[in-house]
């Protein structure tokens, strides 16, 4: 499950598997204001395509993703 430090704009999903990066991203985005950006940290290879699909279906914006060693940093903007 979600572990580690988190800030208002960062969601740490390292170590958790599908569907949690997606479910937690959705929960967090729902509490944010339009235009705010969320950084999601995940070690699940499915997180990038899953969050892209989620963004497409929910109307939120997938900004980018970068990979650092075994971790992906995913940026989404609330719409």
């Amino acid at each position, binding site marked *: *499950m979600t572990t580690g430090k988190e800030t208002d704009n960062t969601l740490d999903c390292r170590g*958790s*598997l*599908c*569907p*949690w990066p*997606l*479910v937690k*991203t*959705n*929960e967090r985005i729902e509490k944010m204001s*339009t*235009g705010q950006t969320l950084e999601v940290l995940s070690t699940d290879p499915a997180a990038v395509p*899953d969050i892209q*699909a*989620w963004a497409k*279906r*929910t*109307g939120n*914006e997938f900004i980018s993703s970068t990979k650092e060693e075994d971790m992906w940093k995913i940026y989404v*903007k609330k*719409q």
Partner: protein
Amino acid sequence: MSKNNKKKIDTKKLVIVISKGTLDMAYPPLILATSAAAMGMKVDLYFTFWGLDLLNKKKIDSIKMAPVGNPGLPMPNIVGMIPGMTSIVTSMMKRSIKKYWPTIPEMMKSAKDAGVRIHACSPTMGLMKVDEKELIPEVNDIIGASTYLDLAIDADVSLFI
């Protein structure tokens, strides 16, 4: 940001029939259901036959993994037939699952909290002598085949597990 980005997307619908009451058959529909709800889909789960065990207060905490008839497990079927193997395989599986996912009752609760609708199959309740009072509180209602079909006719994705 432009206003065009904030387009309203039609609500898509997912309906899943859950007919099995083992760990490996319980997690996939619950994972799909919670994901679909997070994606803004309307989700209906119809629990029938052994799937009803997942809604039974007395059984939901002790959902097992079948060691026989599952060639994916790292043991011959004949070993799976030894008395006690079901609990051994179940606790091995639960230990692995625990690292990544909550338990079945917790998954059921998060699905419900996310707006997933949970339906119990009426004929199964009759067949297996399950009373309404024995069902977990997450159950929305008890329905039959035609109500399920009515939901499935309008579904964008319909699965039988």
